């Protein structure tokens, strides 16, 4: 049986972490961290080769006109576009992450999900973002969800596996905690909040709950798994709060791209604007930053 979660106190705790005041030097350090832990993402039906190439260029050099801006950790895209990204990012430290397993709904057979995963890896993906079977989870078929993660992990081999819980569809923090425990036990390298495709995406209390699961799992087994928050993270303020949550629940050791990621698209522009503001004392307009 999983640890239970009390919603009222959890939300109070998350709310108090969101009130940490991150200013001046810590804001600059936080912006750096957030960029270097970012999975710069495009997951649209209208994604094209050109779109992915410009995303990759930005991933590598987010703001050429500003000093000391790191590259992001990875780009996150659909499997069919992996070869394009791989080509654009060859020889760079930026990883290519591919969604798989019938993203975002996961409503397909295990055979299709495994084939989806294998194709992405064959095309050169460094990391796989899979979705869990929420239908099976909510129906109480936990063993099925668990076995499926194990199967995908086996297909991944050494490739990093992020397991998307889609917390916005799980209905309670108890379920978030249970799904986290289950994914970690099944061998997930990362657990990830959301696909970004449903109404509710990453939230602070959900991130706290997932961090607690990761912390308890590491204490129990010695293995350190990572957290990825995704969906709806648009502002520097939100990103700073996620850093605070990870720092105060898991510890500073988790604040590195191997153990923490933020999946986002427009967030990068806000981080760069805030960064320039910290350096110069004033805000530049949106047009002073490259789009994408």
């Amino acid at each position, binding site marked *: 049986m999983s*640890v*239970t*979660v*009390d919603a*009222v*106190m*959890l939300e*109070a*705790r998350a709310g108090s972490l969101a*009130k*940490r*005041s*991150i*200013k*001046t*030097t*810590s*804001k600059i*350090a*936080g912006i750096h*961290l957030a960029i270097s832990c970012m999975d710069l993402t495009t997951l649209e039906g209208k994604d094209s080769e050109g779109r992915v190439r410009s995303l990759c260029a930005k991933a590598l050099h987010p703001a050429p006109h500003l000093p000391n801006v790191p590259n992001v950790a990875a780009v996150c895209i659909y499997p069919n576009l992996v070869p394009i990204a791989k080509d654009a990012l060859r020889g760079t430290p930026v990883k290519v992450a591919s969604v798989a397993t019938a993203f975002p709904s996961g409503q397909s057979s295990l055979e299709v999900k495994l084939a989806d995963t294998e194709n992405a890896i064959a095309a050169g993906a460094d990391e796989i973002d899979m979705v869990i079977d929420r239908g099976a989870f909510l129906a109480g078929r936990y063993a099925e969800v668990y076995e499926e993660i194990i199967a995908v992990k086996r297909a991944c081999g050494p490739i990093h596996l992020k397991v998307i819980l889609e917390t916005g569809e799980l209905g309670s923090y108890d379920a978030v905690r249970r799904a986290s425990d289950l994914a970690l036990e099944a061998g997930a390298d990362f657990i990830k909040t959301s696909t970004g495709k449903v109404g509710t995406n990453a939230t602070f209390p959900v991130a706290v709950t997932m961090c*607690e699961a990761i912390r308890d799992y590491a204490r129990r087994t010695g293995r350190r798994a990572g957290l990825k928050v995704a969906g709806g993270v648009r502002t520097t303020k939100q990103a700073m709060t996620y*850093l605070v949550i990870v*720092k*105060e629940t898991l510890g*500073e050791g988790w*604040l*590195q791209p191997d153990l923490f990621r933020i999946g986002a698209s427009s967030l990068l522009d806000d981080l760069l604007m805030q960064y320039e503001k910290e350096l110069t004392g004033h805000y530049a307009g949106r047009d002073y930053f490259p789009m994408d």
Partner: protein
Amino acid sequence: MAIFEYAPAPETTKAPIREEYGLFIDGKWTSPRSGQYFDTVNPATEETIARVAYGANEDVDRAVRAARKAYEKYWRKMRPADRAKYIYRIARAITERSRELAVLETLDGGKPIKESRDFDIPLSAAHFFYYAGWADKLEWAMRAGEEPRPIGVAGQIVPWNFPLLMAAWKLAPALACGNTIVLKPAETTPLTALALAHIAAEADLPPGVLNVITGDGATGATLVSHADVDKIAFTGSTEVGKAIQRAIAGSGKRLTLELGGKAAHIVFADAPIDQAIEGIVNGIYFNQGHVCCAGSRLLVEESIHDEIVVRLTDRIQTLRLGNPLDKNTDVGAINSKMQLDKIKELVSSGINEGAVLVQQSCDLPARGYFFPASFFTNVQQSHRIAREEIFGPVLSILTFRTPEEAVEKANNTPYGLSAGIWTDKGSKNMYIAQYLRAGVVWCNTFNQFDPSSPFGGYRESGFGREGGVHGLREYLAH
């Protein structure tokens, strides 16, 4: 190396502070007849903030006379709806000046700015708003056949742990019911009460309705024994509470006492454990443990004792102790040198009695009165640290095996102000709560307050209630 360390984030709002404060009597600032002043000190820096008038016998008498005059001349006769307007005005002024009041409270008392900003000041305003609404509806607080009538002049003595809030708890219902007041703030934290006197004056509260007399215990004792005071409301130590009750015996004065506590905080094995840890932290480290309803006696089901200790040990390392004005500070300064000495004395008694001390490891600031977040394991019911109120950031952890034992141990104390229960099972929460002899029982939460909710103690934690309709009735003759 730290990769994401929080930079200092001090609150920059300035609170207007005068070098010297007189007494607020009959709507005017006056010098003390005693001619004496005392310093109020910032406990985080040990620097003097201001000189404050010392109210002696003659000053207390002047204040009581002013209150009596205002009672007969204006306040008891005023239309209740008009009384409400003044109270609303005070509530709004507190809201408008909330940030500077928060800074003042933190400077004078040492509590973290995030607590004075998010708890003390907003809740103070909420009490004035709540009781302002009652002023013209008092008959609804009465039983059949009772007429709402004020009592007269109330002497109110408030402590240093929540200076403005405790004043608000007492002033708002007293004013709403038509009483006039002599308020005596604590010696170490007079500044927000004096700021409130300013607010009252600016709100055009008729002179004498609120008088503020600063001083020490002797000032309070003079107020208590003044013949023309009709009601005493006191929040503070059980020892002083008993002295007050002895002093007014036979005088016919009405009395409410809100005194000490040694609250049991019960954690069952089926509790939502991470939230229980947050509840424990809030219960004992909120306001450095200077809380009469603090969850200072943790009763943990034996099977999860070790797990609780591991988690709590880790958790207290993340508490940020230091400059109370920093927005990221979780544990501020101990209110006074005297209180710090008392905490240290009880902690060494715990060590001598064989309990095991665990503390957050952090550097204490070079100046100021600070004590790290601490807890004791291996505590026995007979230890002083399990029986006496420490009133500091020090928790005593005991264990139990069955729900019956939990209840028995929880009630085995002379106090009975608050209690807490953590279990994911709702029925167990309700079942246990009914057996706890405490004025408030928090289930899966701690330190929740609302103006509409009565607060007060059993046994040596006092009698009478503050808050809600119950708190209103304490200021009505019936």
